């Protein structure tokens, strides 16, 4: 059997625009959600995913043919794509939602990503690797990667802290975060990888966008699509009834003496055994 020619790698990195983690979250007055009129930035887990894709290229050089960032969200989400492009992605896809529409749910997001991957397949630029954050810090659901793997029937390596590719064998060696340590697994490509925070400990932090790269990023192409173009329905299936802050913690008190303490304990209904 003659060896199949080594095909160059196409990487897809889905990213999400989320309320910045440094911002203090407040419930909006209508109690329908949080106040979103605050600073947003790229979901930190996705930032790690972009960083890893760019590092793969730095390690594998020309073997990585393309790094594409994709986001689903309102017009402002394109800023998040620009950040990904400035960090080193080559091009981007923006599935644009009306500014007023509700945030899509993981299943809808996964179906949208599947549609994009299938489109790429048809245009003969098949995706070999999807790297995305293990969860977004706004809803903390942590489902999209797994659902996407399920829909595509691809292997998944979740909560990854280390990723090595063997292009000849078309396989990946991934270290996953599990309770009490790491688990090393081998997967074949194409593959879904979701990134965990430990990337930060194993490597240095995600890079700053350098000025020349920011300027270059402005010239990189962003393809705009709608849900209709992809034949997906992003309407949420869940209805948010009410969002409220957790009850305020009531602080403890000080007692002057042992007798005072005993009196308090008795008051609370605690007696000696």
């Amino acid at each position, binding site marked *: 059997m003659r060896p199949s020619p080594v095909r160059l790698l196409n990487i897809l990195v889905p990213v999400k625009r989320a309320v910045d*983690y440094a911002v203090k979250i407040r419930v909006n007055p209508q109690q329908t959600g949080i106040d979103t009129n605050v600073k947003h*930035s*790229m979901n930190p887990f996705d930032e790690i995913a972009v960083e890893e894709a760019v590092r793969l290229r730095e390690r594998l050089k020309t073997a990585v043919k393309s790094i594409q960032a994709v986001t689903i969200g309102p017009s402002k989400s394109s800023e998040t794509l620009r950040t990904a492009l400035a960090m080193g992605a080559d091009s981007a896809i923006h599935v644009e939602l009306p500014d007023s529409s509700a945030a899509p749910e993981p299943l809808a997001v996964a179906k949208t990503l599947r549609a994009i991957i299938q489109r790429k397949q048809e245009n003969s630029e098949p995706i070999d690797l999807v790297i995305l954050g293990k969860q977004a810090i706004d809803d903390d659901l942590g489902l999209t990667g797994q659902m996407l793997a399920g829909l595509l029937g691809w292997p998944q390596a979740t909560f990854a802290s280390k990723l090595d590719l063997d292009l000849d064998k078309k396989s990946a060696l991934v270290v996953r975060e599990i309770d009490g340590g790491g688990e090393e697994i081998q997967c074949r490509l194409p593959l879904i990888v979701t990134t965990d925070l430990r990337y930060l400990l194993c490597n240095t932090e995600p890079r*700053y*966008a*350098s*000025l020349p790269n*920011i*300027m270059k990023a*402005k010239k990189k192409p962003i393809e705009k699509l709608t849900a209709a173009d992809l034949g997906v329905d992003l309407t949420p299936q869940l209805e948010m009834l009410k969002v409220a802050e957790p009850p305020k913690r009531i602080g403890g008190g000080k007692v002057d003496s042992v007798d005072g303490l005993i009196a308090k304990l008795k008051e609370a209904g605690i007696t000696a055994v």
Partner: protein
Amino acid sequence: MGKYKGASSTVLKPKTTHQVSEIVKWCHHRRIGIVPQGGNTGLVGGSVPLNNELILSLSNMNKVRSFDPVSGILVADAGCILQALTDYIAPHNHIMPLDLGAKGSCQIGGNVSTNAGGLRLLRYGSLHGSILGLEVVLPDGTVLDQLTTLRKDNTGYDLKQLFIGAEGTLGVVTGVSILTPAAPQASNNLILALPSFDNVLSLYQIVKRQLSEILSAFEFIDRTAYELAVRHNQGRALNDDDVQGAECFVLVETSGGKREHDEEKLTTLLETLLDADQPLINTGVLSQSPAQFSSLWALREGVTEAVSKEGKPYKYDISVPLSSFKRVVDGTREHLRSKGLLGEHAVKHVLGYGHVGDGNLHLNVVASEYTQEIQDALEPYIFEVVASHRGSISAEHGIGAMKTHALHYSKDAVSISLMKRIKEMFDPRGIMNPGKVIA
């Protein structure tokens, strides 16, 4: 800094202006020296007793008296910590007109008494402008109540100005009325790497012209200072390759009312800088999130900490013309080399950083130990250099106990004699912060 050590046995912590007045009255009567003390974060020993003076700590006077969210005028006790005031007015969308590394422990009364400068001076001006009124206990215990909240008041001599930067030698500041600006709605910052110091001036001109009213800081860090900060884990902004070709770095901050507007201006600026035929900058980074915004600032603010971790610092805070920043730093290094003091055995680094916008250079000499030999090599050398530029030997740190002997390098005989007469008139018994500023 562990350079000064007092021998006082008593600290009093009054809670009201009346108590301060009673204490000062008693000390006046008994001729007991008083050192007013705020957060004790000063760098020139102004808040440290030289002998066994009574320490008058304002820490317990820490209440906000009033805040008017319409005019932005804040009236507070002198002992309020700067950060606490910042947090107090933040919900009203206002910020303090000054910000400095010690904000978590320095007190507003101390800021006023030392006329603290800091990182926002370029934008909001010095305290001589933003302080609207003061309440001061005079050296005989009388309370001078000038705690007005008027922006305009041309009725005779502006007495409060005398206490701003007097370092507690004319009285004890107990209350402060300060004008606070509206909080900017959008902030950005970037660090630029420059191939040569000579470019800093042209860069400053371009940045000032293009960013105009949104420019809020323009800070300079030389390569030595940058590398020290990186080595001592104060952050990392650029790739190692980008650091290699750079002689110095500049941190630019913008604060404006609308993010899109600011970003458009920044983009135009960056295009101008990067597309120029002879670029003034090698490269740079632009913060993409609040976290990155803070880490870029941490790098600049962390230079101070890095210097202390590296060794024993001799710190000079001078005002000299912008164009001579590098010459002063290099000159000092060469001077130390010619004395055979440069190397691991004595002086490890000579570095410069500071506020370009204010013409304020922090010249730091990091030695392995404090020695008389190094001290003698540095002084009066540096003071003479400053005097030759008609600069200031203390731009924002004050005179305190450290630089009283060198005051004449920045003030002529006429000025010093007038200062002495003012001191004599306010404090004939010499009980207020003795030995400081003018001795």
